């Protein structure tokens, strides 16, 4: 047990307590108010309401993934592309 370990444990303990404390203050789970009515979520409700009409897809998640947030999906595909390129470049032959 050296100095570095002690600092690490203290840092870890502070972060752990902070996370548990945050968990107790998190937004209400289940999104239901006191009268058992769904809490209003304007962005998501709008998507559920208009996804079929606007995009024509029955699956609202797919219409979010490929239409409303399609640019994120392009980024996500790019991340995978970068990872494949990275893995191949790191296992390449070093001599020509």
């Amino acid at each position: 047990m050296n100095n570095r370990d002690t600092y690490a444990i203290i840092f870890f303990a502070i972060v752990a307590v902070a996370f548990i404390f945050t968990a107790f203050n998190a937004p209400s789970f289940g999104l239901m108010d006191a009268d058992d009515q769904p809490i209003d979520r304007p962005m998501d409700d709008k998507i559920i309401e208009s996804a079929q009409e606007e995009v024509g897809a029955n699956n609202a998640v797919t219409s979010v993934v490929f239409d409303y947030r399609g640019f994120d999906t392009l980024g996500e595909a790019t991340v995978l592309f970068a990872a494949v390129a990275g893995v191949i470049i790191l296992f390449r032959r070093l001599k020509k």
Partner: protein
Amino acid sequence: MNVFFVPYLAVAALIIIGLYAVILKRNLIKIVIGITLIESGVNLFLITLGFRENSTAPIYTSSPGGIMSLPVPQALTLTSIVIGVAVLALMLTLVIHIYRHYGTLDVRKIKEVEE
């Protein structure tokens, strides 16, 4: 007393266990596992935020009707999972290389020589 925070405690537990592995473990593979645990925690947090009581999946095909859970967190989690796979692949590649160079996965034996 309401029990609405219980799912979030699971999130906090996953993240804390992951951080424990990253900060205090000495084995590179365990550090990698720790990062994937943090990632699972964050994904669980995202998907928990999208849950509505008594709701169905936001898919209209043969839907029984009623309220639907939120679609955006599901899409975000999907993106985050794929990103996690990419990061994991790259981390394991580097671990393989470190093992080839040093013959060990112990952080203490892998010391950078300062020049």
